[in-house]
């Protein structure tokens, strides 16, 4: 079967039933065995980083909610973390709890969304429909608390914009209680299903070493035995004050990734209950803040893993530069370790198992040499990037991070 003449290229995308967003995977197959994968991610670049540089610090979080269809809290709060890092301020306790509530509700509906899609990808449409049915009340709860099912427009630099309506908390607790029972049953059903086990165990294994090499984050890393979670490693919001457990698995296969997400649903519900019970009083933001010259880094544990935002300020009311590194950006390339050599049916569910989010990941890199010379390779680009970083450090008047040769 290793005859190159029998190789065929199967195009998954840019539009394909497997994908909820446009992306192109070219799978080279011999029979059903995938021997090479090429990915193209240049269909949905929205230029949001550039747009953010034309908006005030107050407006940017609302814009950044639109980076991703799911992680709207993630990107806006992560940006706030970056600016708060620049400012060196702590947000009020009530704001921290409100951000935790928003973040965990988002994790809930994102994980339920993934479970449903994963079911759909392996032809298990009942799981798809049930999981999304359970997701509905979470989105309703989000709307009840913030006025919108996805985009709350709540996070601002220094806290949150509006308070949560406490009169809805009893209803919120009721929804959580119901959801806890439903998701526990769903988890048990998935864990006990022999056909699901046969279909997903040992499939698309990302070993611990490979996970470290690719620097994967979030459930993808935790399913490979890496106990990494920004909420635990560098607690923000109220995560240091509530009790919850980090879910990890050692197998690294698709089944482990599903198990990690299903068990994290229960942890999210646990965190939410504590937040609703303990929500402290006090102010919800720090009022108007002046952002001086400087730079800041924000980290945030998105449902898919660590999100990183970099913000540079020149002292005006708009960021001079915003850089977003979404978790899928590091998770997607790990398919090189987990997919090659596997049968087509396994590769497709493995590609979906890191819960890739393409519009978050989408970053344009245009390489153009107007002099017509050869295009720069990786070493030249790395050197150029280091030179630029040193220049910026000089401009900002701080010691360089890297010693240039």
């Amino acid at each position: 079967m290793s005859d190159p003449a029998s190789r065929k290229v199967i195009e998954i995308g840019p539009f394909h039933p497997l994908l909820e967003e446009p992306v192109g995977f070219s799978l080279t197959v011999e029979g059903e065995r995938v021997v090479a994968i090429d990915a193209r991610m240049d269909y949905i670049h929205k230029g949001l980083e550039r747009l953010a540089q034309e908006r005030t610090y107050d407006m940017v979080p609302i814009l950044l909610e639109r980076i991703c269809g799911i992680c709207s809290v993630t990107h806006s709060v992560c940006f706030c973390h970056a600016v708060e890092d620049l400012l060196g301020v702590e947000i009020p306790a009530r704001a921290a709890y409100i951000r935790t509530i928003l973040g965990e509700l988002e994790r809930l509906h994102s994980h339920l969304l993934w479970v449903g899609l994963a079911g759909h990808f392996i032809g298990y449409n009942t799981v798809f429909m049930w999981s999304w049915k359970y997701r509905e009340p979470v989105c309703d709860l989000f709307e009840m608390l913030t006025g919108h099912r996805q985009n709350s427009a709540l996070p601002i630099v220094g806290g949150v914009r509006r308070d949560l309506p406490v009169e809805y908390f009893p209803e919120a607790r009721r929804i959580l209680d119901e959801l806890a029972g439903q998701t526990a049953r769903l988890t048990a059903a998935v864990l006990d299903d022999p056909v699901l086990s046969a279909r997903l165990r040992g499939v698309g294994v990302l070993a611990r070493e490979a996970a470290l090499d690719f620097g994967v984050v979030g459930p993808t890393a935790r399913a490979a035995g890496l106990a990494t979670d920004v909420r635990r490693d560098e607690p923000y919001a109220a995560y240091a004050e509530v009790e919850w457990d980090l879910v990890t698995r050692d197998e690294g296969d698709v089944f482990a990734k599903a198990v990690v997400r299903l068990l994290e649903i229960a942890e999210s519900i646990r965190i939410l209950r504590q937040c609703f019970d303990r929500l402290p009083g006090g102010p919800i933001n720090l009022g108007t803040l002046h952002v001086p010259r400087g730079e800041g880094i924000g980290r945030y544990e998105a449902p898919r893993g660590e999100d990183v935002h970099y913000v540079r300020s020149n002292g005006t009311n708009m960021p001079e530069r915003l850089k977003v590194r979404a978790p899928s950006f590091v998770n997607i390339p790990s398919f090189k370790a987990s997919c090659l050599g596997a049968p087509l049916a396994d590769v497709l569910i493995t590609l979906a198992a890191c819960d890739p989010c393409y519009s978050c990941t989408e970053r344009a890199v245009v390489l153009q040499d107007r002099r017509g010379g050869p295009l720069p390779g990786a070493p030249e680009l790395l050197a150029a990037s280091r030179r630029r970083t040193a220049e910026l450090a000089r401009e900002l008047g701080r010691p360089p991070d890297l010693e240039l040769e």
Partner: protein
Amino acid sequence: MDRLGEWLFFYLVFPGAVFAVALGLALSWVDRKVTALVQWRKGPPPAQPFWDVVKLLGKEVVVPEQGWAAGFLALPFVALAASVLAATLLWHAALGLPGGELGDLVVVFYLLAIPSAAVILGGAASGSPLGAVGASRDMKLALAYELPLAIALLVGVFQRRPLGGDEASAATLSLAGLLRFQELAGAVVERPSGLLALLVAFVCCHAKLGFVPFDLAEADTEIGEGALLEYGGPPLAMFKLTQAVLLATLPVLLVTVFWGGLGGAPGGLAAGAGKLVLLLVAMVLVKNTNPRVRIDQALRFFWGPVTGVALVALALARMGW
């Protein structure tokens, strides 16, 4: 000339083309409705499968440039013709219609293999790589389930049991003969061998219908309908109709060989309809409580445990159990 007219009526109207298609579309609505209820959806109105086919019939016929056009276009009709003929023979025997015996188990078995052969060839004729993957999967799947299905059907043929001091044995390939034997000696499914054989044949028919967990030849989220990928418009409508006719045929095969037929008397007919609906709903439930398996898993499943159980059932039948 009279015989010919009668046969044409059987084939084209009842219980052939018109009846089988209408019943198949109605049963595919049952499939969709029960699926929807299992999945907490509302489901389509009863006429939806019919309108789906009407819509496809009104669409343009597109033939892929790199494919084998004649085969690509002819095969859906071959599939439909074969499945309608199988439906005619089975329903004719199951209802005990006049006009003598039209066919036997072997003919029906081969006729029922033609639709999947047509899908395989059609997928290959489309010239699409996904179609080729789908065709290859469908071919492996057919190889996997035909063997245990044949053995399971033989269990019906090899039935023998004591009857009034004497021994009765089916020992016939004729559909009507199998029914007569069951009328005399009781349904095959009442015996341990018959029950096992019915289970095996049920699983094989499930795979023949391309239902989850054996929908890997179409697998829309993997290979985008596989062999049917390049089909659209009327040729696709023919494959959809074939699917519907098979839905109205395969349960009848099971009922005829293992479960005493549909019965001639009105009360018997209602019981027969109940058997069909029961089998169909069982299939829909299996379909909705399983994920799709991989092709190697399907092969191992059919050639391993399923064939094993079929052989045990055959041995039991030979021993008169």
